[in-house]
């Protein structure tokens, strides 16, 4: 692939991101603008922004790569990523919006009336965010290395620099525009090349998908336990992701939070058709990519392999642009929500504190990314989902739906889930992918129930600690807002 074309694509995306960010700066003046875009973002904008933020390196590169490697088993990833939003809609979207809190720690503190719970939640949220940024930076490093031949670190550093600039400049309002733009860019960047490829293959007289979708690598099919555990992680992990949740505060009311989620589901369903198509086409026509250990780069390499020439170069440039949009949007979304948490809890919540916190929350994962190696992107993001599902998810679900939750129960449950799931992740990393047993590689199926159980049992044992404000908060979470006209 022509390095010049790839670099140009990268520069255009970074520039577009920065320009839209600065345009947003002109209209973000107040506190509300900075944190949550004044809660007046229209559902379509908001939904595009959520889509833009959520579709990360794992979705853009990782899903197609995994499908190339393991076929239909990997289809559970996009299904789980999408169905996670269904769970979010069913159990979290409207009540969370009605809670009136800005961040997850705000929510748990208001619900349980406890500073200690707030601190533990903040800690967990920051950990989740950092864990989630690392694979984005790995994806950027991989993309730069494959497409331009520059050293890997250049990709991670480029992402961190662009994200810091946009976030420091504009806060959430400009981020909303940037993210919405990046959803549509990502969709185009995946859809156009694969449609072109299919068109070319058909034109060449290659009978569409005539060879069987054979297994190019001989990777053993995943067992039932692994598929179920993965689904548990993805279904319950989504509703605890900090950058996803912060988006719901930008809806004007609970019902519009629901409508936004419905649009998001539509946008994601359309998006995931394309990584699936890449995976299938790659499996049939370019199985060599899987053997050479470049599965994650398959989306980037496929246009060059199957089309070639100038057309191939241009299509590759488009895919590179889309990939960078994915790294930038997810990273900036995470950095904004982490900066919100860190600046309020540690730095006292000023604009300058927010900016400092943003830089810190981007630099720490950069360090992690340098120290660790990239393994399958979709897999490592899957583990982050398992961690969220074992920590933030139980406290949110029980906090919203169960009157008996206490601060002691919430803390005990989050710590249990965090230690079990974090321990499994560390042990799995130490043992190496090949020799990790299934129950360690996909821990969600037992760590999530364990966290829920501890949270419920400890709350039961400490009934006297149910906060006095509980009924009032539950009422606010679940009763509909009045239409503005009849507000008394």
């Amino acid at each position: 692939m022509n390095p010049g074309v790839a670099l140009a694509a990268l520069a255009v995306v970074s520039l577009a991101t920065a320009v839209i960010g600065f345009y947003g700066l002109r209209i973000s003046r107040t506190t509300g603008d900075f944190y949550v875009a004044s809660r007046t973002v229209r559902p379509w904008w908001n939904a595009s922004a959520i889509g833009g933020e959520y579709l990360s390196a794992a979705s853009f590169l990782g899903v197609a790569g995994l499908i190339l490697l393991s076929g239909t088993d990997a289809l559970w990833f996009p299904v789980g990523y999408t169905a996670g939003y269904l769970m979010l809609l069913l159990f979290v979207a409207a009540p969370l919006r009605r809670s009136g809190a800005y961040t997850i720690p705000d929510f748990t503190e208001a619900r349980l009336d406890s500073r200690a719970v707030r601190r533990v939640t903040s800690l967990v949220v920051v950990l989740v965010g950092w864990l989630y940024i690392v694979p984005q930076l790995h994806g950027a490093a991989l993309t730069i290395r494959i497409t331009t031949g520059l050293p890997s670190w250049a990709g991670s550093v480029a992402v961190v620099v662009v994200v810091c600039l946009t976030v420091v400049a504009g806060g959430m309002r400009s981020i909303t525009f940037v993210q919405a733009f990046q959803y549509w860019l990502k969709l185009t960047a995946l859809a156009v090349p694969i449609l072109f490829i299919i068109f070319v293959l058909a034109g060449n007289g290659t009978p569409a998908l005539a060879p069987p979708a054979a297994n190019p690598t001989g990777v053993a099919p995943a067992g039932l336990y692994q598929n179920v555990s993965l689904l548990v992680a993805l279904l319950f992990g989504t509703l605890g992701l900090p950058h996803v949740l912060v988006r719901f505060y930008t809806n004007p009311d609970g019902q519009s939070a629901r409508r936004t989620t419905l649009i998001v589901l539509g946008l994601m369903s359309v998006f995931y058709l394309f990584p699936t198509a890449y995976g299938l086409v790659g499996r049939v026509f370019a199985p060599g990519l899987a053997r050479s250990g470049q599965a994650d780069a398959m989306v980037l390499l496929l246009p060059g392999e199957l089309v070639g020439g100038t057309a191939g170069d241009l299509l590759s440039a488009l895919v590179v642009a889309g990939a960078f949009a994915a790294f930038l949007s997810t990273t900036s979304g995470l950095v904004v929500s982490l900066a919100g948490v860190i600046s309020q809890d540690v730095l006292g919540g000023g604009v300058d504190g927010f900016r400092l916190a943003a830089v810190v929350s981007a630099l720490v994962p950069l360090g992690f990314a340098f120290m660790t190696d990239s393994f399958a992107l979709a897999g490592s993001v899957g583990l982050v989902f398992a961690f969220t599902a074992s920590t933030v998810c139980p406290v949110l679900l029980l906090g919203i739906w169960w009157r008996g939750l206490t601060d002691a129960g919430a803390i005990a449950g989050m710590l249990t889930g965090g230690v079990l799931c974090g321990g499994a992740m560390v042990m799995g990393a130490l043992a190496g992918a090949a020799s990790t047993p299934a129950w360690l590689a996909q821990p969600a199926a037992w760590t999530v129930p364990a966290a829920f159980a501890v949270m419920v049992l400890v709350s039961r044992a400490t009934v006297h600690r149910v906060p006095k404000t509980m009924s009032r908060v539950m009422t606010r979470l679940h009763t509909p807002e009045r239409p503005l006209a009849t507000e008394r």
Partner: protein
Amino acid sequence: MTRVRMTAPRTAPRPAKESREAAQDSEVGQVFVRSLIRSQLRLALVVASGFLLILGAFPLLLAAVPGLAETRVAGIPFAWLLLGVGIYPVIGLSAWLYIRMAARNESRYRDLADDR
């Protein structure tokens, strides 16, 4: 450029709704609220388990009918169509149904609360 000092309210109070929340604190008000929460939770659980049953039925169907996974529709193996395309309309439909029913629960609650 004006700089605004940000001190985000930790619990985001809503003064405009003070009177409304006071009304909901009454015993009858709390009965309505509890029944609203119960019906919303029941609805969410029903939709979630319905969706999970369908999701679980997909691979069972593929395993139960031999040769179905490899049957080709327009050149694409059926297993790919089912898991790669067919599941998404089910997700969208579940979401749409839930939103309608949840809004209905809320308007029923609103009628009750206003009638008092």
